């Protein structure tokens, strides 16, 4: 499942579905709204491009790290502290591939996928700056 959506997902169900024939490891990454003195976080995406980019990243991770299954769910809209922002579930035959594949996906998302976060803070709102300046964050 590759999706950009407002709704949360049941991570337990995703783990069960990731257990394909040959699976020896499932790795879950769950990015969460951290309590950095904020009220809420608002997420926005260029949805068509972001979804296509997530699919490319999943394909590349599958190829490079021999993954058996990939789920990427990136949430948008308003999220409260403690809510899930991004869920990545990967399965592989062995743990090195599962860990490496999961890491590859999150780092690629941070570099390439057109999604933005705004912190709604008690002392005023603030767009979270992109980690990657122009030239290295090329949406492909």
């Amino acid at each position, binding site marked *: 499942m590759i999706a950009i959506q407002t709704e949360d997902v049941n991570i337990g169900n995703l783990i069960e579905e990731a257990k394909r024939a040959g699976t020896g490891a499932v790795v879950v990454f769950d*990015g969460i709204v951290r309590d950095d003195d904020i009220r809420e976080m608002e*997420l*926005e*995406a*260029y949805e*068509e*491009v*972001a979804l*296509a980019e997530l699919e490319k990243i999943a394909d590349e991770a599958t190829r490079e790290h021999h993954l058996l299954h990939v789920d990427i769910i*990136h949430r948008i809209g308003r999220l409260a502290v403690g809510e899930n*922002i*991004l869920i990545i579930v990967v399965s592989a035959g062995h743990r090195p591939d599962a860990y490496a594949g999961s890491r590859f996906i*999150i780092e690629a*998302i*941070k*570099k*390439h*996928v*057109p*999604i*933005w*976060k*705004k912190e709604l803070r008690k002392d005023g709102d603030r*767009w*979270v*700056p*992109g*980690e*990657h*300046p*122009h*030239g290295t*964050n*090329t*949406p*492909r």
Partner: protein
Amino acid sequence: MTIKVRFFARFRELLGTDLILDYPAGATLAPFVRDIAMKKKDGYDALFDEHGTFREFVIIMRNGKRVEHGDAAALPLADGDEVAIFPPVAGG
């Protein structure tokens, strides 16, 4: 010709989004965006420097494909094109 313009994140707050514009045929991308942004000074200043060139961090797409800054000035637009302008991505 009709061009759709989509600004995102901070640029959306400054300039709006999903703008559908009738524009004379033969337009090229950078002058077209400059023309739209000029209507709101804060938005213009966010996108362009004092020489009227895109600021280094501004990301430009046409029909979902990245456009390099060096190509934007001369890139012709066609009827039905979608232009997207956004700051560095910050998902995850």
